[in-house]
């Protein structure tokens, strides 16, 4: 598998109380990679490292086959970036911002951009400083897509937007990804939103990548099991036991990853009895994985 983004043992210390620690992440080419994590977990810092906006203390970053930050300018020419806050010059109008932005990207698709301004109902004569949050979100996404990037890096692009605008923006994104086979790294703490569009998930917490796995595995392989009579230690387990909690009486609650129904035989051979298998939705899984990682720290 080839990767659009690959980091190895990335470290970056920004303050005494916060650092990115030993981050090794892999975003496959043409994947839509959901970058999950609570506020302050290090998602934005990681994104800034990937774009060369920050310099790592140590470690290696390769984006689209090029080294960052050494080849940042060449990498950025192929990336569409939507930051979490407005980064455009507020004194410009929508049309001027498009004109300014297009000057830096030879791949800028003018007819498409003009068509999108009409479709998204953006008034090109309005100054950016008076745009609503939804209009700003649409404009930033439009700018990122009209440059025809191979990789989209979106930092909480729909945070604080109403459902209609959110749907517009995600629709635009989905259409682009389908047409261009682009790779997308999208960070969010809106778990359900990512569930619909992502095929890979990376989970950040306290500056560490806690988990990285295909969405399907995340959605289907993460289960809560109610088990009784299990031995204290399990050897050769075909699944990953993330959390083991005593429930009422002899019944224990386990949080496991990589579970398939055929693994029930393994439990029985170990002398345990499986009482119940509970499906977790993505948000439950997200919360449970965070808990498990924090317990392990």
């Amino acid at each position, binding site marked *: 598998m080839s990767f659009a983004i690959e980091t190895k043992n990335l470290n970056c210390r920004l303050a005494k109380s916060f650092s990115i620690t030993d981050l090794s992440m892999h975003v496959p080419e043409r994947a839509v990679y959901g970058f999950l994590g609570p506020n302050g977990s290090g998602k934005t810092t990681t994104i800034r490292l990937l774009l060369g906006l920050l310099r790592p203390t140590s470690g290696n970053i390769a984006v689209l086959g090029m080294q960052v930050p050494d080849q940042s300018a060449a990498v950025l020419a192929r990336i569409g970036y939507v930051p979490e806050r407005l980064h455009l010059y507020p004194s410009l109008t929508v049309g001027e911002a498009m004109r300014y932005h297009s*000057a830096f990207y030879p791949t800028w698709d003018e007819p498409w951009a003009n068509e999108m301004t009409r479709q998204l109902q953006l008034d090109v004569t309005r100054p950016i400083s008076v745009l609503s949050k939804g209009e700003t979100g649409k404009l930033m996404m439009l700018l990122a897509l009209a440059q025809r990037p191979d990789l989209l890096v979106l930092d909480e692009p729909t945070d604080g937007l109403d459902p209609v605008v959110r749907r517009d923006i995600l629709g635009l994104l989905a259409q682009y990804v389908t047409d261009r086979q682009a790779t997308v790294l999208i960070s969010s703490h809106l778990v359900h939103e990512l569930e619909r569009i992502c095929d890979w998930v990376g989970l950040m917490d306290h500056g560490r990548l806690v988990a990285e796995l295909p969405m399907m595995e995340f959605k289907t392989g993460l289960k809560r099991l109610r088990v009784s009579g299990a031995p204290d230690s399990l050897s050769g387990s075909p699944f990953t036991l993330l959390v083991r909690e005593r429930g009422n009486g002899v019944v224990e609650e386990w949080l496991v990853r990589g579970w398939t129904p055929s693994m029930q035989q393994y439990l029985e051979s170990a002398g345990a009895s499986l009482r119940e298998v509970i499906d977790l939705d993505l948000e439950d899984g997200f919360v449970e994985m965070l808990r498990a990682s924090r317990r392990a720290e």
Partner: protein
Amino acid sequence: MFRTIVWMQWKSTRALVLLTTIAAFALPLFSLKLGLNNYSPVGFVTTMQTVGSAYSILAALAGLLVALAAWRADHAGRHVYALSLPVTRPRYAMFRFGAGLLFMLPTVAAMLVGCLMVTFSGVIPEGLHAFPISLTLRFALATLVAYSIFFSISSSTNRTAGIIVAIIAGVIFAQYLLTVFGDNRQTVDLFDQLSKFIFIRPGILSVFSGRWMLIDA
């Protein structure tokens, strides 16, 4: 790309450029008007010398305003937009610097026109000479020096600004200690030493000091 940066930067600078251009045009005329209030050539030259410091102040002000305007838009977005554009940092900074330099031209040109108007007004007392070109060149150089210094300070982070403020505070504190605890007969005047170091040739700001004379003997 450069043209687009010039256009964008012009939007945030044009009002300031207009202001300094008007001031640069008016200053030589104003100094002539003041000089003509004196009846003797000596009084005329003295007035010219007094007004002379206004040229250096205007040059510093023009450099300061254009330099601040050059980075204002980027500061507002904490430089995220600029840094995410596919241009190397030195190249982007040179574009911004170059655009600001262009905006100095109207002010310098206005100064030249004002100086030439004074020169050819025919009211300069006999025995005195006008130096419109050399004064304009000096004004241009001083503007360039001021712009370069303020541009680099303005482009820096809060941390760098903090270091600069800390150095100034350190000098003030050291002078205070020297004054309070030093030997009265041999107290060193740090401000005096520092200003000599900076403003007397070949000090970095020496272009601002000395005589700024449009009309002299």
